[in-house]
């Protein structure tokens, strides 16, 4: 059961062994994707083995940051008190140029401007001293 105090704080990602490199990369301004050297599968998010072939021969490479909006939804009713001051904001499903799809939020403009198939560009936005989130602006 979650407490009222917890609900007022925004959830901050806690990196694990699989994902530490991703969050480090974002702090440095790049979105790292995992490329499988065995089967050439490209994946987001980070994990210890390839989701396609199970191989562990993975390398991290920076994404171009270019993507396209596959779907979106503008949030007007915040999921709890921590996000009440942020509404309205647009949650995006972005198809990255390299293949993987990821979830993010729109930045740098009105959420009402978001459309299907809109071209977007990665923006690495620090939310505190240790965490940077990958968001997207209009390309």
């Amino acid at each position, binding site marked *: *059961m*979650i407490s*009222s105090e*917890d*609900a007022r704080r*925004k*959830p*901050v*990602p*806690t*990196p*694990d062994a699989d*994902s530490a490199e991703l*969050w480090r990369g974002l702090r440095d301004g790049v979105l790292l994707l995992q490329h499988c050297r065995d089967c050439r599968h490209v994946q*987001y*998010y980070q994990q210890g083995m390839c989701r396609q072939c199970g191989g562990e021969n993975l390398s991290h490479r920076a994404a171009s940051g270019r993507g396209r909006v*596959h*779907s*979106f*939804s*503008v*949030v*007007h*009713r*915040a*999921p*709890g*008190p*921590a*996000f009440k001051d*942020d509404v*309205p*904001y647009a*949650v995006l*499903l972005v198809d990255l140029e390299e293949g*993987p*799809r*990821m*979830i*993010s*939020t729109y930045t740098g403009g009105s959420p009402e401007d978001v459309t*299907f198939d809109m071209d977007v560009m990665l923006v690495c936005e620090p*939310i505190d001293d240790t*965490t940077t*989130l990958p968001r997207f602006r209009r390309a």
Partner: protein
Amino acid sequence: MSDSALRGKVAVIGIGMSPVGKVPGKSPLWLAASATKKALADAGLDKRDLDGVLSCHAFASPFHRFSVAFSEYFGIQPTFSNTLQVSGATAATMFNIAAAAIHGGLAKVVLVVASDSLMTGLTPDLALRSLTESRDQQYEMPFGIPVANTFAMTAHRHMKEFGTTAEQLAEVAVVQRRHAARTPGAQQTSPITVDDVLNSGWVTTPYHKLDCSLISDGGAAFILTSAEHAKELGIAKPVYILGGGECYTHEHIFLMPSLTSTGAITSSRLAYEMAGFGPKDMHVAGVYDCFTGTVIMMLEDLGFCPKGEGGRFVADGQMTYGGQIPSNTHGGLLSFAHPGMPGSLFHFHEVIAQLRGECGERQVKGAELGLVHSLGAGFATNATTILGTEATL
């Protein structure tokens, strides 16, 4: 006819529910026990007759092992028990697993029970945040993604791909409210129009407030046993489990293979195959309805209409009385009650009551075959159960 070993081997012999809606001062355990007393009375059994308990977690309860905590609360010591967690799909999985356990000899008389107190046990803020906590803490939660949001993005894409309209989504809420108006104890019974839905304020586009299900207190309970034992007990109208199927396609919404075709296609196909019936044979359905667009996509994926036609199907009156598949005749999560994970159990309660011919003015005439589909976590989890009367065996 299917040659499945499970088909028709297990029957539901008792059903019950607690008061639903706003039930202040009652814990999830009380709600579960209240429903169980009614289900036992309905079956003509005593609590000592139960040797199995399946349940799921309640957000307003501190107990991780809810089925175990429930057994202590209710004064029983079962020899088969589990607290299952596949979000909204848990309801149908409890029926499927109870049937398999009974048929496999792990238990003789199994209680399926779930309850929660999302409305008064938690504040609405805490209820929404608790549901949000089920999303991934690294890749989803930091972006402030309400539960409605993942479903909203699937519905939005459905609108883009198939021309489904906001009015068609709203029609689902309107139909189900009309159903709820005839259901004693339903949480919301005042008639609504399509305009009321469209003017009810945004939650997360394309969903307005009235496109979203309720937040409720409540619980439901069911007693299951072998078809053989149901006969020995002289149960008047056993309702048989004819088929079950499940499908789990992803965990994160961004890894959902398609935003508009779900695991319900597979889970229902498996259930139909086991039952030896198809979608056109069903007389009544309980279709998981956390949001209006969910129902439209499920009517397609469960095979009641072709992909992309769900909006028109609903607008043509096909999901209500006189249509192809009267669905959510109790009002569903949108109007009857939605206490979280137990929500889909009320669909079971309704479909079973329909098959027993006990629904009064809501009765679907001649209902012998029914389907319940439960799902959760942005379509990550899907489970289908097909139920039938003695005549369908």
